[in-house]
């Protein structure tokens, strides 16, 4: 991960609405993952290629959280999203 890395949705995950929550279904893994509101916000923000710092700004604006904590959580979330195949690094 570098500060110039762009992240974007992989196109492999389908969004499902479950009550008030959102879940992502990944067909090639036959797996479903339920996202909390912040995780879904991050996923939504990746509908177009976006930089890590831009994502931090989006989350800060919506949640009003502390920047360092947001950065740490975001790193972890991006790592999971890449592993689950929700997103990819934009070329």
């Amino acid at each position, binding site marked *: 991960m570098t500060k110039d890395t762009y992240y974007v949705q992989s196109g492999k995950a*389908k969004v*499902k*609405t*479950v*009550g*008030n*929550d*959102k*879940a992502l*279904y990944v*067909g090639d893994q*036959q*797996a*479903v*993952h*339920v996202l909390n509101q912040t995780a879904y916000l991050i996923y939504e923000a990746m509908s177009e290629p976006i930089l890590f710092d831009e994502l931090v700004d989006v989350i800060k604006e919506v949640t009003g959280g502390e920047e360092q904590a947001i950065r740490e959580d975001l790193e972890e979330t991006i790592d999971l999203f890449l592993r689950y195949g929700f997103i990819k690094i934009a070329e």
Partner: protein
Amino acid sequence: MRTVYLAFPRMTISLTAGEEVLEKAFVFYPFSQSEGKPLFVTHAYRVEREEQKWVVTKDGEVLDSRASAWEAVFVLEYDIELSILEQRGDWLAIHAGCVAVADGACLVAGNPDSGKTTTTFHLVELGWKFMCEEIAFIDSEKKEVHPFLQTLSLDKRFIDAVKGKFPVRRGKVHELNPSLVRYSPELIREEPLRLSTILVPKREPEAEGEAEAVSLSPGAFLTEFLGYCFEPREGMEDLVDRVIGVLEDCRIYRIVYRDISDCRRILIRLFPSASA
């Protein structure tokens, strides 16, 4: 040898066997006997004694042979479950018990040894009508549970512990061997019923404080519930979509309890009227 017919969800079988086997099979399926010969039989089972073995056949093929009539009936039971699962079509099949409570069907879902059969037993003993044990079938379009009526398989130590605290008055207990009993509920529901509630029992003998029912959102429960579903017929995404549809319309509770009295207390709190 005599032939009887047993009706199950989407399947009718014939069973040809001697009285010793039939008597034992009726301990497992007291509610399933079909009046007269049905128009169509899905599978024909036979259990015959050959020298020292009891041989179980299905549609002319040998399934297994066992040393006792009880063991042969266990083979039969296992294969009947597999056959019903094959015949279920587009219904969801869930590892769950089910009873009819005041406002609809209440599933009791969970992994083996989580307390689903004992919780189902308590609900029946509290006066609610029995619908399913081990496997529950759900028509996800109508959101209805279809009864699969077989007797509840319980540890004898559990029944003994219950009898030490409460009378067992809503069903009969058949002792199969020194460690295993079958409980046959008196009140049953034979018609499908719309799903209203899902309970997920969790026995925690070391838990502190009062037993509690924790409400779960469909999203919080989705992946866990998928784990209680039998392998999907139409692919995983179809299963996910059907399960989401089912979960969205019902109340879901994880009930955490320490012991028998605790479990009863919490069930009475959740479903007060039948226990009065």
